[in-house]
Protein backbone atom coordinates (compact mmCIF):
# COMPACT_ATOMS: atom_id res chain seq x y z
CA UNK A 1 0.00 0.00 0.00
CA UNK A 2 2.69 2.45 0.97
CA UNK A 3 4.33 1.88 -2.34
CA UNK A 4 1.24 2.83 -4.24
CA UNK A 5 0.91 6.12 -2.37
CA UNK A 6 4.48 7.15 -3.04
CA UNK A 7 4.07 6.54 -6.75
CA UNK A 8 1.06 8.83 -6.79
CA UNK A 9 2.94 11.65 -5.12
CA UNK A 10 5.85 11.49 -7.47
CA UNK A 11 3.53 11.53 -10.43
CA UNK A 12 1.76 14.60 -9.11
CA UNK A 13 5.06 16.33 -8.40
CA UNK A 14 6.24 15.68 -11.88
CA UNK A 15 3.32 17.58 -13.36
CA UNK A 16 3.20 20.55 -11.01
CA UNK A 17 6.57 21.36 -9.58
CA UNK A 18 9.24 20.09 -11.87
CA UNK A 19 9.17 22.60 -14.67
CA UNK A 20 12.48 22.53 -16.55
CA UNK A 21 13.45 19.39 -14.70
CA UNK A 22 15.61 16.80 -16.42
CA UNK A 23 15.92 13.14 -15.74
CA UNK A 24 19.43 11.79 -15.37
CA UNK A 25 20.40 9.63 -18.35
CA UNK A 26 22.54 7.47 -16.08
CA UNK A 27 20.37 6.81 -12.99
CA UNK A 28 16.99 8.09 -14.34
CA UNK A 29 16.39 10.21 -11.23
CA UNK A 30 14.43 13.37 -11.83
CA UNK A 31 16.31 16.59 -11.03
CA UNK A 32 14.82 20.06 -10.82
CA UNK A 33 16.37 22.97 -12.70
CA UNK A 34 17.39 24.70 -9.44
CA UNK A 35 18.87 21.52 -8.07
CA UNK A 36 20.95 21.06 -11.21
CA UNK A 37 22.15 24.63 -11.32
CA UNK A 38 23.15 24.59 -7.67
CA UNK A 39 25.18 21.46 -8.21
CA UNK A 40 27.02 22.68 -11.36
CA UNK A 41 24.63 20.59 -13.48
CA UNK A 42 25.88 17.38 -11.93
CA UNK A 43 23.43 14.68 -10.83
CA UNK A 44 23.45 14.60 -7.04
CA UNK A 45 22.48 10.93 -7.01
CA UNK A 46 25.05 9.34 -9.32
CA UNK A 47 27.47 12.14 -10.21
CA UNK A 48 26.58 12.17 -13.91
CA UNK A 49 27.84 15.38 -15.53
CA UNK A 50 25.16 17.04 -17.66
CA UNK A 51 26.24 19.16 -20.58
CA UNK A 52 26.75 22.87 -19.77
CA UNK A 53 26.54 25.71 -22.24
CA UNK A 54 29.52 28.00 -22.77
CA UNK A 55 27.83 30.84 -20.89
CA UNK A 56 26.93 28.57 -17.97
CA UNK A 57 30.54 27.41 -17.85
CA UNK A 58 31.83 30.97 -17.76
CA UNK A 59 29.41 31.71 -14.93
CA UNK A 60 30.61 28.62 -13.05
CA UNK A 61 34.29 29.51 -13.39
CA UNK A 62 34.63 33.30 -13.47
CA UNK A 63 34.21 35.45 -10.36
CA UNK A 64 30.96 37.40 -10.62
CA UNK A 65 31.25 40.45 -12.83
CA UNK A 66 34.84 39.87 -13.96
CA UNK A 67 34.17 38.30 -17.40
CA UNK A 68 35.06 40.53 -20.32
CA UNK A 69 34.73 39.03 -23.77
CA UNK A 70 37.45 39.38 -26.41
CA UNK A 71 37.10 38.91 -30.16
CA UNK A 72 33.33 39.02 -29.74
CA UNK A 73 32.74 40.44 -33.21
CA UNK A 74 34.14 37.51 -35.19
CA UNK A 75 31.61 35.63 -37.32
CA UNK A 76 31.91 32.76 -39.75
CA UNK A 77 32.16 33.54 -43.45
CA UNK A 78 31.43 31.03 -46.19
CA UNK A 79 34.73 30.80 -48.09
CA UNK A 80 33.82 27.61 -49.96
CA UNK A 81 30.26 28.50 -50.88
CA UNK A 82 29.57 25.25 -49.14
CA UNK A 83 26.41 23.55 -50.12
CA UNK A 84 24.94 20.29 -48.94
CA UNK A 85 21.27 19.84 -48.19
CA UNK A 86 21.31 23.32 -46.66
CA UNK A 87 23.62 26.29 -47.20
CA UNK A 88 26.32 26.73 -44.55
CA UNK A 89 25.43 30.36 -43.62
CA UNK A 90 21.92 29.20 -42.80
CA UNK A 91 23.25 26.49 -40.49
CA UNK A 92 25.40 29.09 -38.74
CA UNK A 93 22.52 31.50 -38.32
CA UNK A 94 20.33 28.79 -36.91
CA UNK A 95 23.05 27.79 -34.46
CA UNK A 96 23.41 31.42 -33.41
CA UNK A 97 19.67 31.67 -32.90
CA UNK A 98 19.42 28.40 -30.97
CA UNK A 99 22.39 28.93 -28.67
CA UNK A 100 22.57 32.71 -28.37
CA UNK A 101 26.29 32.39 -29.02
CA UNK A 102 28.31 34.11 -31.75
CA UNK A 103 30.39 30.99 -32.45
CA UNK A 104 31.39 27.62 -31.04
CA UNK A 105 33.96 29.25 -28.76
CA UNK A 106 33.71 32.14 -26.31
CA UNK A 107 36.94 33.90 -25.41
CA UNK A 108 37.54 36.50 -22.75
CA UNK A 109 39.45 37.58 -19.71
CA UNK A 110 38.22 36.91 -16.20
CA UNK A 111 39.26 36.39 -12.64
CA UNK A 112 39.00 32.98 -11.03
CA UNK A 113 39.26 33.25 -7.24
CA UNK A 114 40.79 36.65 -7.98
CA UNK A 115 43.46 35.21 -10.26
CA UNK A 116 43.68 36.84 -13.70
CA UNK A 117 43.17 34.33 -16.50
CA UNK A 118 42.35 34.26 -20.17
CA UNK A 119 39.44 31.89 -20.63
CA UNK A 120 38.24 30.13 -23.79
CA UNK A 121 35.13 27.99 -23.60
CA UNK A 122 33.69 25.83 -26.37
CA UNK A 123 30.03 24.91 -26.76
CA UNK A 124 29.01 21.60 -28.30
CA UNK A 125 25.51 22.91 -29.09
CA UNK A 126 26.93 25.29 -31.70
CA UNK A 127 27.38 23.05 -34.77
CA UNK A 128 28.87 20.30 -32.63
CA UNK A 129 31.53 22.63 -31.24
CA UNK A 130 33.28 22.32 -34.57
CA UNK A 131 36.46 24.29 -35.23
CA UNK A 132 36.37 26.57 -38.25
CA UNK A 133 38.26 29.76 -39.05
CA UNK A 134 36.59 31.74 -36.28
CA UNK A 135 37.38 29.23 -33.53
CA UNK A 136 41.00 29.11 -34.73
CA UNK A 137 41.28 32.89 -34.82
CA UNK A 138 39.63 33.26 -31.42
CA UNK A 139 42.04 30.75 -29.93
CA UNK A 140 44.92 32.70 -31.50
CA UNK A 141 43.67 35.98 -30.01
CA UNK A 142 43.20 34.39 -26.60
CA UNK A 143 46.79 33.09 -26.73
CA UNK A 144 47.97 36.51 -27.91
CA UNK A 145 46.22 38.20 -24.97
CA UNK A 146 47.76 35.66 -22.60
CA UNK A 147 51.22 36.39 -24.02
CA UNK A 148 50.86 40.18 -24.02
CA UNK A 149 49.52 40.36 -20.47
CA UNK A 150 51.55 37.41 -19.14
CA UNK A 151 48.38 35.80 -17.86
CA UNK A 152 47.70 32.03 -17.98
CA UNK A 153 45.24 30.53 -20.47
CA UNK A 154 42.54 28.00 -19.57
CA UNK A 155 40.53 26.36 -22.34
CA UNK A 156 37.39 24.28 -21.79
CA UNK A 157 36.99 22.02 -24.84
CA UNK A 158 33.89 20.35 -26.28
CA UNK A 159 34.05 19.56 -29.96
CA UNK A 160 33.21 17.05 -32.63
CA UNK A 161 36.30 18.13 -34.57
CA UNK A 162 36.98 20.30 -37.59
CA UNK A 163 34.10 22.10 -39.33
CA UNK A 164 33.55 20.27 -42.61
CA UNK A 165 31.77 23.23 -44.18
CA UNK A 166 34.99 25.24 -44.21
CA UNK A 167 36.90 22.41 -45.86
CA UNK A 168 40.68 22.60 -45.82
CA UNK A 169 40.61 25.93 -43.98
CA UNK A 170 39.14 24.21 -40.94
CA UNK A 171 41.82 21.49 -41.07
CA UNK A 172 44.48 24.20 -41.16
CA UNK A 173 43.12 25.65 -37.91
CA UNK A 174 44.85 22.70 -36.26
CA UNK A 175 48.16 24.02 -37.58
CA UNK A 176 47.24 27.57 -36.63
CA UNK A 177 46.31 26.79 -33.04
CA UNK A 178 49.44 24.65 -32.70
CA UNK A 179 51.57 27.65 -33.70
CA UNK A 180 49.76 29.72 -31.05
CA UNK A 181 50.58 27.07 -28.42
CA UNK A 182 54.25 27.19 -29.42
CA UNK A 183 54.28 30.99 -29.11
CA UNK A 184 52.87 30.66 -25.57
CA UNK A 185 55.52 28.07 -24.75
CA UNK A 186 58.28 30.47 -25.82
CA UNK A 187 57.30 33.04 -23.14
CA UNK A 188 56.21 30.81 -21.27
CA UNK A 189 52.66 31.35 -20.07
CA UNK A 190 50.83 28.44 -18.40
CA UNK A 191 48.18 26.77 -20.52
CA UNK A 192 45.70 24.25 -19.13
CA UNK A 193 42.96 22.48 -21.08
CA UNK A 194 39.80 20.93 -19.66
CA UNK A 195 38.37 18.21 -21.88
CA UNK A 196 34.61 17.84 -21.50
CA UNK A 197 32.10 15.56 -23.15
CA UNK A 198 32.81 15.05 -25.99
CA UNK A 199 36.19 16.23 -27.28
CA UNK A 200 37.25 14.51 -30.49
CA UNK A 201 38.86 14.92 -33.90
CA UNK A 202 40.80 18.00 -34.92
CA UNK A 203 40.41 19.79 -31.59
CA UNK A 204 41.69 16.83 -29.57
CA UNK A 205 44.53 16.35 -32.08
CA UNK A 206 45.70 19.96 -31.77
CA UNK A 207 45.56 22.45 -28.90
CA UNK A 208 43.47 20.30 -26.53
CA UNK A 209 46.29 17.77 -26.07
CA UNK A 210 49.12 20.33 -26.33
CA UNK A 211 48.44 22.03 -23.01
CA UNK A 212 50.81 21.93 -20.04
CA UNK A 213 48.25 20.07 -17.94
CA UNK A 214 45.36 18.12 -19.45
CA UNK A 215 42.29 17.84 -17.21
CA UNK A 216 39.26 15.71 -18.09
CA UNK A 217 35.71 15.82 -16.76
CA UNK A 218 34.27 12.55 -15.39
CA UNK A 219 32.63 10.43 -18.08
CA UNK A 220 33.75 12.62 -20.99
CA UNK A 221 34.24 10.84 -24.32
CA UNK A 222 37.71 11.67 -25.61
CA UNK A 223 38.90 10.01 -28.78
CA UNK A 224 40.44 11.12 -32.07
CA UNK A 225 38.15 9.04 -34.27
CA UNK A 226 34.43 8.80 -33.69
CA UNK A 227 33.01 5.56 -32.22
CA UNK A 228 31.07 4.69 -35.39
CA UNK A 229 34.13 4.99 -37.62
CA UNK A 230 36.18 2.78 -35.33
CA UNK A 231 33.42 0.17 -35.20
CA UNK A 232 33.26 0.17 -39.00
CA UNK A 233 37.03 -0.26 -39.19
CA UNK A 234 37.45 -3.06 -36.68
CA UNK A 235 34.04 -4.57 -37.51
CA UNK A 236 33.16 -5.34 -33.94
CA UNK A 237 31.60 -3.65 -30.93
CA UNK A 238 33.78 -1.27 -28.96
CA UNK A 239 34.98 -2.46 -25.55
CA UNK A 240 33.01 -1.09 -22.61
CA UNK A 241 34.19 2.28 -21.38
CA UNK A 242 36.18 2.89 -24.56
CA UNK A 243 37.37 6.47 -24.97
CA UNK A 244 35.96 7.66 -21.65
CA UNK A 245 37.97 10.02 -19.47
CA UNK A 246 38.59 7.20 -16.99
CA UNK A 247 40.10 4.97 -19.67
CA UNK A 248 42.18 7.89 -20.96
CA UNK A 249 43.73 8.32 -17.52
CA UNK A 250 44.49 4.62 -17.41
CA UNK A 251 46.23 4.77 -20.79
CA UNK A 252 48.20 7.83 -19.83
CA UNK A 253 46.53 10.27 -22.21
CA UNK A 254 45.33 12.86 -19.67
CA UNK A 255 46.74 14.03 -16.35
CA UNK A 256 43.68 13.80 -14.14
CA UNK A 257 39.92 13.74 -13.82
CA UNK A 258 38.37 16.57 -11.85
CA UNK A 259 34.68 16.69 -10.96
CA UNK A 260 33.02 19.91 -12.01
CA UNK A 261 32.36 21.09 -8.48
CA UNK A 262 36.11 21.22 -7.79
CA UNK A 263 37.18 22.57 -11.18
CA UNK A 264 37.37 26.23 -10.22
CA UNK A 265 39.59 25.63 -7.20
CA UNK A 266 41.83 23.17 -8.97
CA UNK A 267 42.27 25.40 -12.03
CA UNK A 268 43.52 28.23 -9.86
CA UNK A 269 45.77 25.89 -7.95
CA UNK A 270 47.34 24.30 -11.04
CA UNK A 271 47.75 27.54 -13.00
CA UNK A 272 49.20 29.16 -9.92
CA UNK A 273 51.65 26.34 -9.38
CA UNK A 274 52.75 26.50 -13.01
CA UNK A 275 53.41 30.19 -12.53
CA UNK A 276 55.37 29.26 -9.44
CA UNK A 277 53.67 32.05 -7.53
CA UNK A 278 51.20 30.35 -5.24
CA UNK A 279 52.45 27.70 -2.90
CA UNK A 280 50.54 24.46 -2.62
CA UNK A 281 47.60 25.44 -0.47
CA UNK A 282 45.15 22.67 -1.31
CA UNK A 283 45.52 19.14 -0.16
CA UNK A 284 47.77 17.09 -2.44
CA UNK A 285 46.03 15.63 -5.48
CA UNK A 286 47.39 12.16 -6.00
CA UNK A 287 46.31 8.62 -5.74
CA UNK A 288 46.89 7.45 -2.23
CA UNK A 289 46.95 3.82 -1.16
CA UNK A 290 44.27 4.42 1.44
CA UNK A 291 41.95 7.34 1.82
CA UNK A 292 42.39 9.40 4.92
CA UNK A 293 39.44 10.40 7.10
CA UNK A 294 38.28 14.00 7.29
CA UNK A 295 39.15 14.96 3.72
CA UNK A 296 36.25 17.33 3.26
CA UNK A 297 37.19 19.45 6.25
CA UNK A 298 40.78 19.80 5.10
CA UNK A 299 39.60 20.71 1.64
CA UNK A 300 37.29 23.49 2.79
CA UNK A 301 40.03 24.88 4.99
CA UNK A 302 42.50 24.81 2.14
CA UNK A 303 40.16 26.76 -0.12
CA UNK A 304 39.91 29.39 2.55
CA UNK A 305 43.68 29.58 2.65
CA UNK A 306 44.08 29.93 -1.09
CA UNK A 307 41.43 32.65 -1.15
CA UNK A 308 43.24 34.64 1.48
CA UNK A 309 46.51 34.13 -0.38
CA UNK A 310 45.03 35.53 -3.55
CA UNK A 311 43.67 38.59 -1.72
CA UNK A 312 46.53 41.05 -1.24
CA UNK A 313 44.75 43.02 1.47
CA UNK A 314 44.74 40.01 3.77
CA UNK A 315 48.34 39.12 3.04
CA UNK A 316 50.73 39.58 5.96
CA UNK A 317 53.09 42.58 5.52
CA UNK A 318 56.44 41.86 3.89
CA UNK A 319 59.34 41.42 6.21
Amino acid at each position, binding site marked *: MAQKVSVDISRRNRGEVLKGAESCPQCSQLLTAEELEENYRVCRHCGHHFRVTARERVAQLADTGTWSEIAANLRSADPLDFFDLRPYPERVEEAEYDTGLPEAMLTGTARIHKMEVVLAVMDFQFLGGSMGSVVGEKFWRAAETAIETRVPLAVVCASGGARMQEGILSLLQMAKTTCAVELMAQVPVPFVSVLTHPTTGGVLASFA*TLSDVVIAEPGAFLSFAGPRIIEQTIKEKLPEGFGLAESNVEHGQVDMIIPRSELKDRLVQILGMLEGGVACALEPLWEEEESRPGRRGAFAEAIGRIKSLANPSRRPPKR
Partner: protein
Amino acid sequence: MPTLPGVHLKDEIAKVSQRLRELGHNRHLDKAVWGRVELARHPERPYTQDYIHQMFPGFIELRGDRCFADDPAIVGGLAAYMGRTIMVIGHQKGRDLAARTRRNFGMARPEGYRKAQRLMNLADKFGIPVLTFIDTPGAYPGVAAEERGQAGAISGSLLCMARLDVPTVAVIIGEGGSGGALALALADRVLMLENSIYSVISPESCAAILWKDADEAHLAAQTLRLTSSDLLELQAVDAVLPEPRGGAHRDHAAAARIVKEALEDNLRELEAIHPQLRKQERFQKFRQMGVWKENGLTLF
Protein backbone atom coordinates in the same frame (compact mmCIF):
# COMPACT_ATOMS: atom_id res chain seq x y z
CA MET B 1 17.60 33.61 -43.61
CA PRO B 2 16.93 33.67 -39.88
CA THR B 3 14.68 30.88 -38.76
CA LEU B 4 11.85 31.97 -36.51
CA PRO B 5 10.26 29.63 -34.01
CA GLY B 6 7.24 27.92 -35.48
CA VAL B 7 8.31 28.61 -39.06
CA HIS B 8 9.44 25.43 -40.75
CA LEU B 9 11.17 25.85 -44.07
CA LYS B 10 13.08 22.59 -44.01
CA ASP B 11 11.17 20.79 -46.73
CA GLU B 12 11.10 23.83 -48.98
CA ILE B 13 14.83 24.35 -48.54
CA ALA B 14 15.57 20.72 -49.29
CA LYS B 15 13.53 20.94 -52.48
CA VAL B 16 15.21 24.13 -53.65
CA SER B 17 18.65 22.78 -52.79
CA GLN B 18 17.98 19.67 -54.80
CA ARG B 19 16.90 21.76 -57.78
CA LEU B 20 19.92 24.05 -57.43
CA ARG B 21 22.19 21.07 -57.36
CA GLU B 22 20.70 19.74 -60.55
CA LEU B 23 20.90 23.09 -62.32
CA GLY B 24 23.94 24.80 -60.91
CA HIS B 25 26.62 22.17 -61.02
CA ASN B 26 27.10 20.97 -64.52
CA ARG B 27 28.09 17.40 -65.03
CA HIS B 28 31.41 18.19 -66.77
CA LEU B 29 32.81 20.01 -63.80
CA ASP B 30 31.51 17.23 -61.61
CA LYS B 31 33.41 14.64 -63.60
CA ALA B 32 36.59 16.72 -63.65
CA VAL B 33 36.68 16.93 -59.85
CA TRP B 34 35.94 13.25 -59.32
CA GLY B 35 38.54 12.42 -61.96
CA ARG B 36 41.11 14.24 -59.84
CA VAL B 37 40.09 12.22 -56.79
CA GLU B 38 40.52 9.00 -58.76
CA LEU B 39 43.90 10.10 -60.10
CA ALA B 40 45.08 11.00 -56.60
CA ARG B 41 44.19 7.45 -55.51
CA HIS B 42 45.46 5.75 -58.69
CA PRO B 43 47.03 2.39 -57.75
CA GLU B 44 50.06 3.07 -59.95
CA ARG B 45 50.67 6.58 -58.74
CA PRO B 46 54.21 7.07 -57.40
CA TYR B 47 54.36 6.64 -53.61
CA THR B 48 56.87 8.04 -51.14
CA GLN B 49 59.32 5.18 -51.68
CA ASP B 50 59.15 5.68 -55.46
CA TYR B 51 60.17 9.30 -55.05
CA ILE B 52 62.92 8.27 -52.64
CA HIS B 53 64.27 5.71 -55.14
CA GLN B 54 64.23 8.24 -57.94
CA MET B 55 65.54 11.24 -56.03
CA PHE B 56 67.87 9.91 -53.34
CA PRO B 57 70.00 6.90 -54.36
CA GLY B 58 71.88 6.62 -51.06
CA PHE B 59 68.82 6.72 -48.77
CA ILE B 60 69.28 5.23 -45.31
CA GLU B 61 66.03 4.26 -43.63
CA LEU B 62 65.71 4.84 -39.89
CA ARG B 63 63.03 2.87 -38.14
CA GLY B 64 61.06 2.74 -34.92
CA ASP B 65 59.64 5.24 -32.46
CA ARG B 66 61.77 3.94 -29.53
CA CYS B 67 58.59 3.54 -27.49
CA PHE B 68 56.48 0.80 -28.91
CA ALA B 69 56.97 -0.25 -32.53
CA ASP B 70 57.97 0.65 -36.03
CA ASP B 71 55.00 1.80 -38.09
CA PRO B 72 55.50 0.84 -41.75
CA ALA B 73 52.77 3.31 -42.77
CA ILE B 74 55.34 6.08 -42.34
CA VAL B 75 58.88 5.72 -43.67
CA GLY B 76 61.76 8.05 -42.93
CA GLY B 77 65.49 8.38 -43.10
CA LEU B 78 68.59 10.25 -44.18
CA ALA B 79 69.38 11.13 -47.76
CA ALA B 80 72.28 12.86 -49.50
CA TYR B 81 71.02 15.72 -51.61
CA MET B 82 72.92 18.42 -53.52
CA GLY B 83 75.93 18.40 -51.24
CA ARG B 84 73.97 18.26 -48.01
CA THR B 85 71.99 15.79 -45.94
CA ILE B 86 68.22 15.98 -45.73
CA MET B 87 65.70 14.08 -43.63
CA VAL B 88 62.94 12.52 -45.71
CA ILE B 89 59.70 11.38 -44.04
CA GLY B 90 56.50 10.26 -45.74
CA HIS B 91 53.39 8.10 -45.68
CA GLN B 92 53.79 4.85 -47.59
CA LYS B 93 50.68 3.13 -48.97
CA GLY B 94 52.12 -0.13 -50.36
CA ARG B 95 51.79 -1.33 -53.93
CA ASP B 96 50.48 -4.91 -53.82
CA LEU B 97 48.03 -6.50 -51.41
CA ALA B 98 50.69 -7.84 -49.05
CA ALA B 99 52.49 -4.51 -48.88
CA ARG B 100 49.22 -2.66 -48.46
CA THR B 101 48.24 -4.81 -45.52
CA ARG B 102 51.66 -4.42 -43.93
CA ARG B 103 51.64 -0.68 -44.43
CA ASN B 104 47.97 -0.41 -43.44
CA PHE B 105 47.14 1.48 -46.67
CA GLY B 106 49.25 4.40 -45.47
CA MET B 107 47.08 4.92 -42.39
CA ALA B 108 49.56 5.62 -39.62
CA ARG B 109 49.23 4.67 -35.98
CA PRO B 110 50.62 6.77 -33.12
CA GLU B 111 53.99 5.02 -33.51
CA GLY B 112 54.27 6.44 -37.01
CA TYR B 113 53.78 10.01 -35.86
CA ARG B 114 56.15 9.47 -32.94
CA LYS B 115 58.78 8.09 -35.30
CA ALA B 116 58.31 11.18 -37.46
CA GLN B 117 58.86 13.39 -34.40
CA ARG B 118 61.99 11.49 -33.44
CA LEU B 119 63.44 11.89 -36.92
CA MET B 120 62.52 15.57 -37.13
CA ASN B 121 64.16 16.29 -33.80
CA LEU B 122 67.23 14.40 -34.95
CA ALA B 123 67.33 16.52 -38.11
CA ASP B 124 66.94 19.69 -36.07
CA LYS B 125 69.86 18.75 -33.85
CA PHE B 126 72.26 18.58 -36.81
CA GLY B 127 70.74 21.37 -38.90
CA ILE B 128 69.38 18.97 -41.51
CA PRO B 129 66.43 20.25 -43.60
CA VAL B 130 63.24 18.17 -43.48
CA LEU B 131 61.26 17.02 -46.52
CA THR B 132 57.91 15.28 -46.04
CA PHE B 133 55.74 13.40 -48.54
CA ILE B 134 52.03 13.33 -47.79
CA ASP B 135 49.93 10.46 -49.08
CA THR B 136 47.38 8.99 -46.67
CA PRO B 137 43.61 8.46 -46.46
CA GLY B 138 43.94 9.54 -42.81
CA ALA B 139 45.23 8.40 -39.44
CA TYR B 140 44.20 4.86 -38.51
CA PRO B 141 40.95 4.77 -36.51
CA GLY B 142 41.40 1.76 -34.23
CA VAL B 143 40.91 0.96 -30.56
CA ALA B 144 44.60 0.29 -29.84
CA ALA B 145 45.64 3.38 -31.79
CA GLU B 146 43.33 5.49 -29.63
CA GLU B 147 44.57 3.89 -26.43
CA ARG B 148 48.15 4.69 -27.38
CA GLY B 149 47.19 8.31 -27.97
CA GLN B 150 46.46 8.89 -31.65
CA ALA B 151 45.31 12.47 -30.98
CA GLY B 152 48.36 13.30 -28.88
CA ALA B 153 50.70 11.75 -31.44
CA ILE B 154 49.26 13.95 -34.20
CA SER B 155 49.25 17.12 -32.11
CA GLY B 156 52.79 16.27 -30.97
CA SER B 157 53.91 15.96 -34.57
CA LEU B 158 52.30 19.32 -35.39
CA LEU B 159 54.03 21.00 -32.48
CA CYS B 160 57.33 19.38 -33.43
CA MET B 161 57.08 20.80 -36.96
CA ALA B 162 56.11 24.23 -35.61
CA ARG B 163 59.24 24.48 -33.49
CA LEU B 164 61.86 23.15 -35.93
CA ASP B 165 64.71 25.59 -36.60
CA VAL B 166 65.61 23.88 -39.88
CA PRO B 167 63.86 24.57 -43.21
CA THR B 168 60.86 22.31 -43.91
CA VAL B 169 59.20 21.44 -47.20
CA ALA B 170 56.06 19.28 -47.48
CA VAL B 171 54.88 17.80 -50.78
CA ILE B 172 51.36 16.40 -51.13
CA ILE B 173 51.87 13.61 -53.67
CA GLY B 174 48.53 11.79 -53.57
CA GLU B 175 45.85 11.84 -50.91
CA GLY B 176 46.09 14.43 -48.17
CA GLY B 177 43.53 12.98 -45.77
CA SER B 178 42.64 15.03 -42.71
CA GLY B 179 44.69 15.28 -39.51
CA GLY B 180 46.77 12.26 -40.43
CA ALA B 181 48.08 14.20 -43.43
CA LEU B 182 48.39 17.59 -41.74
CA ALA B 183 50.56 16.03 -39.02
CA LEU B 184 53.43 16.05 -41.55
CA ALA B 185 52.43 19.23 -43.40
CA LEU B 186 53.02 22.13 -41.01
CA ALA B 187 55.94 23.25 -43.17
CA ASP B 188 57.62 26.44 -44.40
CA ARG B 189 56.57 25.48 -47.90
CA VAL B 190 53.64 23.23 -48.72
CA LEU B 191 53.73 22.07 -52.34
CA MET B 192 51.09 20.00 -54.05
CA LEU B 193 51.17 17.84 -57.15
CA GLU B 194 48.56 18.87 -59.70
CA ASN B 195 46.42 15.73 -59.41
CA SER B 196 46.60 15.24 -55.67
CA ILE B 197 43.88 16.15 -53.19
CA TYR B 198 44.02 17.61 -49.69
CA SER B 199 40.93 17.68 -47.52
CA VAL B 200 39.54 17.90 -44.00
CA ILE B 201 37.50 14.73 -44.56
CA SER B 202 37.24 12.13 -47.31
CA PRO B 203 34.44 12.84 -49.81
CA GLU B 204 32.85 9.49 -48.84
CA SER B 205 32.68 10.28 -45.11
CA CYS B 206 31.52 13.83 -45.81
CA ALA B 207 28.69 12.52 -47.99
CA ALA B 208 27.76 9.93 -45.37
CA ILE B 209 27.45 12.64 -42.72
CA LEU B 210 25.84 15.48 -44.67
CA TRP B 211 23.81 13.63 -47.29
CA LYS B 212 23.44 10.46 -45.21
CA ASP B 213 24.51 8.68 -48.38
CA ALA B 214 28.09 7.76 -49.26
CA ASP B 215 27.09 7.55 -52.94
CA GLU B 216 26.95 11.34 -53.04
CA ALA B 217 30.75 11.40 -52.67
CA HIS B 218 31.25 13.11 -56.02
CA LEU B 219 29.04 15.99 -54.84
CA ALA B 220 30.94 16.20 -51.58
CA ALA B 221 34.24 16.20 -53.47
CA GLN B 222 33.03 19.19 -55.42
CA THR B 223 31.76 21.23 -52.52
CA LEU B 224 34.78 20.45 -50.31
CA ARG B 225 37.08 22.09 -52.88
CA LEU B 226 39.91 19.65 -52.46
CA THR B 227 41.75 19.91 -55.81
CA SER B 228 45.12 21.59 -56.17
CA SER B 229 43.74 24.64 -58.00
CA ASP B 230 41.09 25.17 -55.30
CA LEU B 231 43.66 24.93 -52.54
CA LEU B 232 45.99 27.39 -54.23
CA GLU B 233 43.10 29.81 -54.54
CA LEU B 234 42.28 29.37 -50.84
CA GLN B 235 45.99 29.93 -50.06
CA ALA B 236 46.10 26.61 -48.25
CA VAL B 237 49.17 25.52 -50.23
CA ASP B 238 52.10 27.59 -51.49
CA ALA B 239 52.50 26.14 -54.98
CA VAL B 240 51.12 23.51 -57.33
CA LEU B 241 53.56 21.32 -59.27
CA PRO B 242 52.51 20.25 -62.78
CA GLU B 243 52.49 16.52 -63.45
CA PRO B 244 53.66 14.64 -66.53
CA ARG B 245 51.03 14.42 -69.25
CA GLY B 246 48.20 12.12 -68.16
CA GLY B 247 49.25 12.08 -64.52
CA ALA B 248 52.23 11.12 -62.37
CA HIS B 249 51.47 7.38 -62.70
CA ARG B 250 52.40 7.52 -66.39
CA ASP B 251 56.02 8.47 -65.71
CA HIS B 252 57.46 8.11 -62.22
CA ALA B 253 60.88 9.42 -63.24
CA ALA B 254 59.47 12.60 -64.73
CA ALA B 255 57.29 13.20 -61.68
CA ALA B 256 60.31 12.78 -59.43
CA ARG B 257 62.31 15.24 -61.56
CA ILE B 258 59.58 17.85 -61.14
CA VAL B 259 59.51 17.37 -57.37
CA LYS B 260 63.30 17.46 -57.21
CA GLU B 261 63.51 20.76 -59.07
CA ALA B 262 60.84 22.33 -56.87
CA LEU B 263 62.61 21.08 -53.76
CA GLU B 264 65.87 22.60 -54.94
CA ASP B 265 64.31 26.03 -55.57
CA ASN B 266 62.41 26.08 -52.31
CA LEU B 267 65.31 24.88 -50.18
CA ARG B 268 67.62 27.48 -51.71
CA GLU B 269 65.15 30.23 -50.88
CA LEU B 270 64.52 28.97 -47.38
CA GLU B 271 68.17 28.46 -46.52
CA ALA B 272 68.88 32.10 -47.36
CA ILE B 273 66.62 33.23 -44.51
CA HIS B 274 67.82 33.49 -40.91
CA PRO B 275 66.41 30.56 -38.88
CA GLN B 276 64.56 32.81 -36.41
CA LEU B 277 63.02 34.84 -39.20
CA ARG B 278 62.11 31.67 -41.08
CA LYS B 279 60.27 30.41 -38.04
CA GLN B 280 58.47 33.71 -37.62
CA GLU B 281 57.38 33.59 -41.24
CA ARG B 282 56.11 30.04 -40.69
CA PHE B 283 53.98 31.22 -37.74
CA GLN B 284 52.73 34.20 -39.73
CA LYS B 285 51.74 32.00 -42.63
CA PHE B 286 49.62 29.69 -40.50
CA ARG B 287 48.26 32.57 -38.45
CA GLN B 288 46.69 33.95 -41.62
CA MET B 289 44.95 30.69 -42.48
CA GLY B 290 41.19 31.04 -42.49
CA VAL B 291 38.41 33.38 -43.57
CA TRP B 292 36.10 35.15 -41.17
CA LYS B 293 33.96 38.25 -40.76
CA GLU B 294 34.85 40.94 -38.28
CA ASN B 295 32.41 43.81 -37.70
CA GLY B 296 30.68 42.74 -40.89
CA LEU B 297 33.86 42.78 -43.03
CA THR B 298 35.11 39.54 -44.56
CA LEU B 299 38.80 39.03 -43.89
CA PHE B 300 41.04 36.68 -45.80
